[in-house]
């Protein structure tokens, strides 16, 4: 069977599964719609969190980014997993104890202010929108390559599916589809990795395989040593050494970590478990499920880089395998025969180099490059779609709850009934899907670049405000709002300046302290903290009832005021 037929089969089966789950788990109340009824088991929530978290960028782009960055690519790996340590230790248990539906609800109640609530609503919506566009675009790329429909049709199909289960089931539908999506995406990611690892090194575990010796057909010797040697010879630099400045890698890693911990769509997943203990446990499960993919990604990066260089370098253009021309058509690979010898020169020097390879190729085309069976190639498409759709759904829910609960119910129209609130939530998610689809078809930039944007903003706005709200009971309204606004404003301005206004100035000599726009969120976080703490010093302490909220969220399972629950 052809790759395309297999792809249709996998995509139809997986989409059928998601729709089936959506019909089975319809939401009847706002409680269902916002937090899936609050009774999700830690293991289930861990799996859903992992799917929620691992986006099109993690699935499609990350291994490719690492294979071009070498050791420096570790900032994605450490940043996107290390953030879970912060989430588990500093946020999840306390926010679960607080027990409201949304992040703006925590900010609004803890800082006893509508303007804080509205600032948080604004940040949540901007961050989620930026991030959701990347998912839609990722879905579009997969559709256009594997099903050979154009990107617009692909995005519309993706929108329709997400729309169906998110509008019908809210958090409840999303939770259970995410569990299914996790299974699909991890299977789709691991199968080609195991195959390739076996083929190249004889070791079925990719995490060990990329530190093993190559099989005799590949020339023997340690894989990474070979990679280092060939990369250096072709002028790409040694793969296992750092190339970016240490402070930039440091700041990017930190920005991704703080951003991970501050992303509202991840935080709200912890509101769905029954207790504080369960919140801690599900953070542990989530990180295990994420780590399976994240420790495999650098192995795929190394395998595919060796494979790519073996296949293309100095080879006849006319003798390229069929995947080369299929990917040329999507313009993810481009060959420009500069010296006219009919051979491909793939080298580090841009004057001589004749091959441009988009990083997304490393995962999407990897099974084809390694000549794996057709069904494995097709599996990758289903997995990438699962990754994109699961994250998109979680983000759309944040946008929807921010509007229906925090904006309508808590600010504009406090008297609406639960039924009306639920209707607003569904209308909001509908509108959000449409806007996200528009940006998916007319994307503002690369998938991963756009997502990096969202992290900086989440890091500079939410993370410090929530952590201070829990760990510093003296923190007051004025400090938190001022901190969030300066942190968000500074980070947004820096990124917009270097990415959109003057991209030609974006290099180490113009950057502040040598920090690239990807890492500036860390500085934004620090600015937020400094502004918040200094404004707080000169303004009044928060009222007594707010300090009681803080005392309460610090204790699992007990209320300080009122009756102690009997044991």
């Amino acid at each position, binding site marked *: 069977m052809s790759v395309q037929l297999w792809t249709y089969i996998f995509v139809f089966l997986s989409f059928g599964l998601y729709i089936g789950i959506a019909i089975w788990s319809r939401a009847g109340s706002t409680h269902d719609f916002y937090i899936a009824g609050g009774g999700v088991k830690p293991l289930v929530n861990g799996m859903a969190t992992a799917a929620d978290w691992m986006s099109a960028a993690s699935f499609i782009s990350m291994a490719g980014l690492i294979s071009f960055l070498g050791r420096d690519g*570790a900032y994605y*790996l450490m940043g996107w997993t290390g953030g879970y340590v912060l989430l*588990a230790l500093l946020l999840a248990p306390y926010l679960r104890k607080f027990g409201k539906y949304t992040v703006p609800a925590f900010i609004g109640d803890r800082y006893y202010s509508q303007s804080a609530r509205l600032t948080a609503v604004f940040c949540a919506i901007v961050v989620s929108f930026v991030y959701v566009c990347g998912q839609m675009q990722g879905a579009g790329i997969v559709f256009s390559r594997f099903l050979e429909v154009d990107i617009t049709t692909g995005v519309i199909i993706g929108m329709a599916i997400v729309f169906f289960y998110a509008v019908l089931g809210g958090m409840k539908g999303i939770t259970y589809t995410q569990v299914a999506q996790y299974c699909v995406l991890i299977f789709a990611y691991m199968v080609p990795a195991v195959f390739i690892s076996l083929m190249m090194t004889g070791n079925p575990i990719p995490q060990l395989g990329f530190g093993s010796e190559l099989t005799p057909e590949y020339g023997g010797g340690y894989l990474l*040593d070979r990679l280092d040697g060939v990369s250096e010879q072709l002028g790409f630099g040694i793969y296992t050494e750092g190339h970016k400045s240490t402070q930039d890698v*440091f700041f990017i890693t930190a920005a991704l970590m703080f951003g991970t911990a501050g992303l509202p769509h991840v935080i709200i997943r912890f509101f769905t478990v029954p207790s504080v*203990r369960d919140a801690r446990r599900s953070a542990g499960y989530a990180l295990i499920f994420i780590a399976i993919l994240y420790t495999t990604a650098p192995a795929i990066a190394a395998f595919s880089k060796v494979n790519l260089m073996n296949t293309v370098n100095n080879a006849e253009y006319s003798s390229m395998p069929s995947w080369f021309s299929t990917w040329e058509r999507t313009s993810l690979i481009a060959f420009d025969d500069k010296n006219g010898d009919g051979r491909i020169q793939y080298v580090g020097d841009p004057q001589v180099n004749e091959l441009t390879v988009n990083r997304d190729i490393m995962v999407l085309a990897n099974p084809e490059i390694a000549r794996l069976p057709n069904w494995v190639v097709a599996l990758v498409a289903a997995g990438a779609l699962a990754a994109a759709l699961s994250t998109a759904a979680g983000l759309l829910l944040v946008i929807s709850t921010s509007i229906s609960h925090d904006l309508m119910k808590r600010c504009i129209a406090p008297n609406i009934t639960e039924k009306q609130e639920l209707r607003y939530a569904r209308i909001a998610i509908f509108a959000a899907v449409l806007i996200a689809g528009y940006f998916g078809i007319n994307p503002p930039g690369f998938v991963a670049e756009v997502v990096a944007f969202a992290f900086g903003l989440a890091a500079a706005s939410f993370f410090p405000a929530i952590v201070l709200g829990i*760990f510093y009971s003296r923190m007051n309204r004025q400090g938190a709002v001022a901190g969030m606004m300066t942190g968000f404003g500074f980070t947004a301005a820096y990124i917009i300046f270097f990415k959109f206004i003057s991209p030609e100035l974006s290099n180490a000599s113009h950057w502040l302290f040598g920090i690239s726009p990807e890492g500036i969120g860390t500085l934004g976080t620090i600015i937020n903290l400094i502004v918040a703490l200094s404004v707080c010093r000169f303004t009044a302490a928060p009222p007594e009832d707010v300090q009681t909220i803080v005392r309460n969220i610090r204790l699992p*399972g007990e209320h300080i005021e009122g009756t*102690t629950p009997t044991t």
Partner: protein
Amino acid sequence: MSDKNARSYWQANVRIVLRLLCVWFFISFGCGILLADFLDQFRIGGFKLGFWMAQQGSIYGFVILIYVYIRQMDKLDHQYKLDQTQSADSSPSDKEEQS
């Protein structure tokens, strides 16, 4: 729970968190970034140690850290009898884990 107890529980909680965050910083920013070049002189199999810490070891470390945290907090909750209010609505299998 009395105010005094609540305060000492919180202080113990913060101590656990701070200790674990030091380890978190050391394995990621320390071994994975600042000390990576130095660690590269050691090898495990085909990996240089600094490279391995950056792309593999730190992630395994994070998983272990969260599980150490879960254990220590369970112990602390038990010590302050904060786990009892919750075991009422959790499943029997959860109770077995506690003992």
